[in-house]
């Protein structure tokens, strides 16, 4: 028994590691192809079918390149930083359930590395350790652009970690669990299982119409999901929150002085982080491995994995879509968004969720509180900045109108 346990544990670890790295390598290709699509280009198409082996070629090239180290750099910290950027992202994948279960030789094997009862907190802890790689790289390079990138990233990632953590809290309140496996288990079945509207004439009928929908948290927790998505993009340091490596301002930010395999580690670390954030988003809001069942009894062990991967792919597409669309935020706008918009919005939503999910309060009161607070949140998010609204002089645009991502000045 114990030996089987050890073998299963090692096999699962290796499988998850290979899966994560494989997905990451494919993701690099995927992003280049998708962003090429969005810019009316073709993208990599030389190596392998559809350019699939391009990442491999790049990896081999980077592996054989010289790893330079500037003379003023701090040798040990300079060497540790890329590893410190990559490892937490890899570790965070340990709590992601990427499939249901499979029975091999009488052993029920769950497709999760480990089902910690503090799984979500573990994910947040690994996220908070991810800052080190970037901060240390910035400092250890002994050069000014990396230092600026490192200082930026430490401020940015701490700010958005708070919003990220708070955006997860409502889901934890709703599910009553910190374990990713049990959060996924609660999202099984159809939305018809939810009896929140039972006994209310009109709402019950409407809920009955929507019974074809799966019972995912996205229906009730979509505001938290939006907050999670914004904070998650900021956590991965990707556009439009790529200030730590802003090319047009800081050359390459924290990894300006890195080359060869060390740079490859930073590069892969960012993509692993993307995959992990997507996987956590799928797990918490989109039912994890749950999906439609077509053939009972056939491929029961495989379909959950397939659905999980499909959902993660859609998430990753969204990441690339964001990058292709939005321009980089200015630094003060970044802080403004994190502290003055995301944070209060997350806190408000936590209060709403907490009230709605308290069974002791009569249902109509809960609905009332939900409605009022919800309208307040919407009004508050959408109100914009009155000063700027006055300052805008209406004028005819000759070309396409500029896209305004956020309003208001720093205040």
């Amino acid at each position, binding site marked *: 028994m114990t030996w089987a346990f050890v073998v299963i544990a090692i096999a699962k670890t290796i499988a998850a590691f290979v899966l994560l790295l494989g997905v990451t390598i494919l993701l690099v290709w995927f992003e280049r192809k998708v962003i090429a699509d969005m810019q009316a280009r073709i993208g990599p198409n030389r190596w392998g079918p559809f350019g699939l082996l391009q990442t491999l070629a790049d990896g081999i090239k980077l592996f054989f390149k010289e790893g330079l180290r500037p003379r003023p750099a701090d040798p040990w910290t300079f060497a540790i930083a890329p590893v410190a950027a990559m490892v937490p992202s890899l570790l965070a994948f340990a709590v992601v359930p990427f499939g249901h279960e499979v029975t091999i030789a009488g052993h029920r094997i769950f497709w999760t590395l480990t089902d910690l*009862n*503090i799984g979500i907190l573990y994910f947040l802890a690994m996220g908070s350790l991810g800052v080190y790689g970037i901060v240390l790289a910035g*400092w250890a390079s002994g050069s000014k652009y990396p230092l600026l990138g490192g200082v930026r990233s430490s401020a940015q*990632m701490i700010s958005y970690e708070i919003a990220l953590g708070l955006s997860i809290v409502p889901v934890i309140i709703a599910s009553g669990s*910190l374990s990713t496996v049990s959060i996924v288990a609660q999202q099984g079945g159809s939305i018809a299982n939810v009896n929140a509207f039972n006994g209310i004439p009109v709402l019950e009928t409407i809920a009955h119409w929507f019974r074809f929908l799966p019972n995912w948290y996205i229906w009730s927790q979509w505001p938290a999901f939006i907050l999670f998505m914004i904070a998650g993009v900021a956590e991965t340091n990707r556009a439009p929150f790529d200030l730590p490596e802003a090319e047009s301002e800081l050359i390459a930010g924290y990894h300006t002085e890195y080359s060869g395999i060390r740079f490859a580690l930073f590069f892969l670390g960012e993509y692993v982080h993307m995959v992990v954030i997507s996987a956590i988003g799928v797990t918490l809001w989109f039912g994890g491995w749950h999906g439609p069942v077509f053939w009972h009894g056939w491929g029961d062990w495989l379909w959950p994995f397939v659905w999980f991967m499909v959902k993660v792919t859609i998430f990753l597409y969204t990441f690339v879509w964001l990058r292709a669309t939005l321009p980089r935020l200015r630094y003060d706008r970044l802080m403004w968004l994190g502290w003055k918009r995301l944070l209060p919005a997350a806190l408000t939503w936590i209060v709403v969720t907490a009230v709605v999910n308290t069974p002791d309060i009569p249902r109509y009161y809960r609905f009332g509180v939900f409605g009022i607070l919800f309208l307040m949140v919407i009004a508050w998010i959408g109100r914009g900045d009155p000063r700027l609204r006055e300052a805008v002089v209406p004028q005819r645009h000759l070309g396409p109108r500029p896209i305004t991502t956020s309003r208001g000045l720093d205040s």
Partner: protein
Amino acid sequence: MAGGVVQFVFAVTFVMALGCSIAMLFAPNAVHVALFLVGAQIALAVAFLLEGAQFDAIMQIIVYAGAIMVLFLFVIMLLGVDRREALVEPLRFQRSLAAGLGLLLAAALVYVGYRSVNLVVGGAGSGAIEAINRSPGNTQGIARVLFGTYELPFEATSVLLVVAIVGVMVLARRISGAQAREAARAEQEAAGREEEAA
């Protein structure tokens, strides 16, 4: 077998925590000091995990290693680490005072360690974590203790923190425009008077 593994991991964390702490004391570079502190904290988190205190372990990483130490690094980077520390003591009795207080702290630590060893050996104190972990789990147990038994001290601590934050904001707040102009005018007048005198 499981016990052997646990003891082995504990030994590793022990060596790591101790090594990092000692290295921290002797590292000349402020950033290295901070890094060794992070290492010690992660080792402590693993030790917590071995004891079954999962929530504490994760909080150790999120709060100390993830947030506070990053802020430390942030400040070190902003201020620059190349600055040499002044070795002249501005306060005359600082060293002797520090030595005395350090001795006191060491004595307290030895006493606590002695007592806890006694407790573990006697089997009296080892039940606390098990009691919290019993049902429905570590996190819920801690929540029950924190927001039930110790609610008043907990809330009092949070009020203390808020007071501290407000105090910092008052101290660090910028002078408003009118006040700044007033101050500048006073300074100019003082300078003018000095010139007249000279």
